[in-house]
């Protein structure tokens, strides 16, 4: 028994004269999710999230006197180790380390090179197990050569059931990349250690659902904060935030994880009869000893499941963070591994909107036919029923008809500050059309047609080259552009005749 105790001590210390304190998981954790800046209007791909998160953890760790190593387990698998900040260690933080050489079938062999292992053979006929000492003479890449009492042999080239048995895990190998700090304390103490770091594999966006009123003058606007994680670690009871705005990121290289597989190769093994191998054909060991990736998560529930929710009980709280907007989920939630979560972000019951059909023509074009682009326009002001920062995201527009909500358009919202105009391009309208015809290169006629039973507002932008001018009394200038702003009557038409001068 005393021997076993000795052995346990011996296994515990990876480096001599240093104790190891392992903190398995954080006690309190905060997760702040940042968007993928390069995604544009596209929705986040749940399998491949390119945003990131700031994880802030608090752990209580008993630091022993003298020099010791504190290992932080249960951190996000996408940790960017160089971004880590360790606080709360009052003195003597010597260095931070992150080891990327993992425990694997290959690293076991590599780290026992020149050392003694046990070679275990099991007789297939009798089940008799024999163990003998062996010394590893090669690394993991290209077959294992062993030195035994009999001489020099190669592992698994015999057709026998044989394997290596190790007496311990070599020092410094863990299952996952582990962040650790080396500290020196004058006296033992209980420290509340804070650890914060950036981690990849998160993303979020706002998902707007707008229900258009029958008179098409207002929408009921709701938004969900949708955040997702592809990380392997779940953060339970996390204070969760999301940050809107454009945050600069540099290309950061995370040192790759090194987990060498065991590649067992033998000498040339061709036979005179290249037949199907017998039952012991596994003497080429399976080198793919990595865990099989988990199956992809099930497809998301259909949108309709979200739509029927008419009001979120929990709404994210907003505050200003420097030049960004911070949205905080007011109570702790679990940011689960490989999962998506939605909470209410915005609920504005009556937002005044102006649906406008928009066209763009090259003024010198003489034969062109276009369908109108339906744009929902509003001002981000309290007087319009808005007046709050709108983070970028997707917008789905519904209208009521046939006793059910019908989706009539989908567009994207950009980051919109208070006071800005809001424009969302939601649909292409087949019934509101424009036709541009010309006689020669000077006289042009633009005809708008409306098949709807209500009058519609139309904006036509006429593009032209520098130095070209257009004669038409009805045109207005807006932001340096020539526009024709007109209301087309119900089931009616409107026309514009103009002349080009160079």
């Amino acid at each position: 028994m005393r021997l076993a105790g000795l052995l346990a001590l011996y296994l515990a210390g990876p480096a001599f004269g240093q104790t190891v304190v392992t903190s398995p998981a954080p006690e309190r954790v905060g997760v702040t999710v940042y968007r993928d800046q390069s995604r544009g209007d596209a929705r986040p791909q749940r399998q491949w999230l390119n945003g990131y998160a700031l994880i802030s953890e608090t752990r209580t760790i008993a630091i022993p006197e003298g020099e010791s190593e504190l290992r932080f387990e249960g951190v996000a698998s996408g940790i960017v180790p160089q971004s880590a900040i360790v606080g709360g260690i009052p003195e003597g933080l010597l260095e931070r380390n992150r080891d990327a050489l993992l425990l694997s079938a290959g690293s076991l062999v590599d780290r026992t090179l020149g050392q003694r292992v046990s070679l275990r053979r099991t007789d297939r006929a009798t089940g008799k197990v024999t163990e003998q000492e062996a010394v590893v003479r090669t690394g993991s890449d290209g077959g294992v050569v062993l030195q035994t009492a009999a001489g020099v042999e190669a592992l698994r080239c015999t057709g026998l059931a044989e394997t290596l048995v190790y007496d311990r895990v070599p020092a410094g190998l863990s299952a996952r990349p582990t962040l650790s700090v080396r500290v020196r304390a004058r006296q033992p103490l209980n420290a509340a250690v804070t650890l914060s770091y950036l981690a990849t594999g998160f993303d979020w966006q706002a998902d707007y659902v707008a229900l258009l009123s029958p008179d098409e003058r207002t929408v009921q606007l709701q938004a969900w904060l949708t955040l997702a994680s592809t990380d392997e670690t779940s953060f339970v009871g996390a204070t969760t935030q999301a940050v809107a705005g454009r945050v600069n990121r540099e290309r950061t290289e995370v040192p790759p994880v090194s987990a060498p597989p065991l590649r067992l190769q033998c000498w040339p093994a061709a036979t005179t009869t290249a037949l199907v191998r017998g039952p012991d054909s596994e003497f080429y060991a399976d080198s793919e000893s990595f865990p099989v990736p988990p199956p992809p998560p099930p497809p998301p529930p259909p949108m309709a499941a979200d739509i029927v929710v008419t009001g979120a009980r929990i709404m994210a709280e907003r505050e200003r963070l420097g030049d960004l907007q911070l949205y905080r989920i007011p109570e702790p939630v679990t940011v689960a591994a490989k999962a998506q979560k939605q909470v209410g972000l915005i609920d504005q019951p009556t937002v005044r909107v102006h649906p406008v059909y928009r066209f763009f023509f090259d003024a010198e074009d003489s034969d062109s036919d276009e369908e109108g682009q339906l744009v929902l326009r509003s001002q981000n002001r309290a007087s319009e029923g808005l007046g709050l920062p709108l983070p970028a995201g997707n917008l789905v527009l519904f209208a009521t008809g046939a006793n059910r909500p019908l989706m009539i358009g989908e567009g994207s919202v950009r980051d919109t500050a208070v006071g800005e105009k809001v424009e969302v391009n939601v649909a292409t309208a087949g019934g509101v059309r424009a036709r541009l015809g010309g006689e020669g290169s000077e006289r042009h006629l633009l005809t708008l047609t409306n098949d709807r039973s209500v009058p519609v507002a139309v904006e036509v932008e006429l593009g032209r080259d520098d130095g070209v001018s257009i004669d038409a009394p009805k045109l207005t200038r807006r932001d340096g552009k020539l526009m024709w702003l007109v209301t087309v009557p119900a089931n009616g038409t409107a026309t514009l005749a103009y002349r080009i001068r160079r």
Partner: protein
Amino acid sequence: MRLLVALMAATAAPLSAQSPQAIPAPTASAQGDVAVTIYNNDLALVQDRRDLALPTGRSRQEFPDVSARIRAETVTLTGAGIGIVEQNFDYDLLSPSALMQKAVGETITLVRVNPATGAETRERARVLAANGGVVLQIGERIEVLRDDGLPVRVIFDKVPEGLRPRPTLSVTLTAPRGGRQPVTLTYLTPGLAWNADYVALFDEAAGRMDVQGWITLNNRSGTAYRNADVVLVAGAVGTAEQRSRYPSPPSSGDVMAAGTETANRARVGDFYLYPLPQRTTIAQAQQKQVSFLDVSGTPAARAYEYRNPWLGTTEQPVSANSVLRFSTASRQGLGDALPAGTVRVYQRDSRGTPQFVGESRIGHTPMGSDLGLTTGQAFDIKVQPTVTERTRLSSDGSRWRTTMRYRLTNASPRAVTVDLLQDGLWGDTRIVSESQTSERRSAGTAVWRVAVPANGEATVTATFDTRF
């Protein structure tokens, strides 16, 4: 329990019959007193002082535990009175296949195992060939190894000379006297690199920030360096290959004014040296960080900048860049030279938790420099540039008159000043009129410093007379 005892016994006292060679203790290394100098450009100089037991006269010495990516041609070995005959770098690696190839013509032992009874029969065989399959001569018979698929153990008498588990450096040297003596091995290796990482906690209300600097070094050289004395050199030393390729210095685009002060750090020539305060072990595949800078309460300010290209006009307002300005001077600054790296900026939220607000890369920055780091774009501060008028002045089209309007909006509750830059004013360009006076930062760029009130907006208009 019995197994444990057996293992312990085995570790403690190896049986001499089973250990033809000495087996090193689990964490022992052949390395001696190691000093590592690491440069920024994936290059390190390793100096390894070992005590070797040398015989008098000529001998061949192997040096295990050198970098797996050693540049063997840069190896030098020095010791008192020691003369070098030759240096070899052998990379004929031991594997089952190489073992069999080297056994061609030799005699090996076969142990046939009866699959039904497990009974072993032993015989000697000569390897005739190892091409495709292994052809053996057993007495008068010729056989192909394991042609019948039955289990056969192949036992070689010894590991052939010259086959090694890892590429190995060996030096043949002459020593004037025998006995233990120190020799110094020096070589260059890629796979070790470092840069700096900075954590800046910005207190916007107080206009101050706390900065911590960390040296981040990575070891991908395939070898651990035990208890090493580490010095980091801020700079990329030119290597022979690079000199011919016109190396470009690391970008330092955020330096607004380069400094002229000398930092209180050790330096060699143009390079600053950052020695690690104590010896450390750099494990393989490890990233190690050691603090080198900790400054509190440096003055810092938030500024805004929008740069418009020539004839730039946008459909929607665009966010202005949010820039963090500070100095590395000894007065009112960080008071140090900054090695190249990434600055990550944090600000506290309403609950006091630091939140990440952006990062920016800096080049090697001398002390006394003024820095402006773009950390992101402001959500609430936007600019919409518009070309409102563009007319040809002369009939031959040689001059144009362009009127621009810039609308700056501020949805935040505090007044800000935005540096509005108009680029592309090359050649004999003239600003005919402008709603406020601009400053020419360079020949091609005009700058307006525009005050935008809290929850308000400001407009700048300007008319340019250009050739294009």
